[in-house]
């Protein structure tokens, strides 16, 4: 399964309003679920953040969890118009966020595989300085597709 095919353009926000970490995560959750489902997801995501920030450094964060509130893997992407504090491992602010929510039962361990893949792709985006490149969600999906194909070829 490739990552680009899991992305949907209505869940990619390239001009996300900057704000407190938790609020920005909440805004992204709301592109996936609303109401009590969103509350449950947010509560679990923030517990994950308590264990250690998912800011992997160099302006990228990848908040993630499983939740009973979803029945399939859901991904939202947000790029803030200004970098925000995220308590990332390199202490630097974050501007690109991949948010990933997986159902509890997950045949084939798609969640952890996809999570690992996002980390890999994120590192490529950093290395090739591509974080700020895309102007539209469509362009972003194409970019991810290209990066992913590049990684496969490199192997």
């Amino acid at each position: 399964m490739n990552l680009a095919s899991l992305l949907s353009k209505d869940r990619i926000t390239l001009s996300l309003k900057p704000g407190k970490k938790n609020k920005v995560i909440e805004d992204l959750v709301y592109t996936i679920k609303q109401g009590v489902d969103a509350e449950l997801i947010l509560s679990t995501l923030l517990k994950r953040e308590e264990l250690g920030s998912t800011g992997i450094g160099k302006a990228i964060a990848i908040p993630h969890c499983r939740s009973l509130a979803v029945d399939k893997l859901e991904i939202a992407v947000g790029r803030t118009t200004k970098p925000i504090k995220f308590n990332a491992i390199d202490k630097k602010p974050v501007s690109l966020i991949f948010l990933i929510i997986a159902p509890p039962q997950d045949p084939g361990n798609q969640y952890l595989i996809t999570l690992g893949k996002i980390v890999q792709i994120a590192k490529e985006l950093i290395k090739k300085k591509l974080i700020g490149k895309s102007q539209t969600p469509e362009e972003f999906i194409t970019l991810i597709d290209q990066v992913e194909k590049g990684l496969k070829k490199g192997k």
Partner: protein
Amino acid sequence: MSTEIVEMHLKLLFDLDNLLNDMDEPTYKKIGFKVEEQEKQSLIKTRTDLLKKLPRETADIYERLRKRYQRAIAPVDNGFCFGCFQRLPTQLLARSEKIITCPNCGRILYWRKK
């Protein structure tokens, strides 16, 4: 305690247990996210507190199932229990007011709101 509150506590507890389980998964560890041991202990305490908030009987059922299956709750999809993949008897399918377990595997059933 109202059914809604019990259900919300159960969902929070279940999501938290899954989170804690994933932290120990070798595949997860390999990805390399930061996990602070001290914070993990504090979340383990949070799960104990959540468990205590549940009615005794519900908490006992949950714990017994967790020990047996790791995941105590199974979503219902298309009339199937997603824990054992058996079709549920139709009389169960109408959403009732209290906690329902799968007649086949015993897991607590959860109907997602559409």
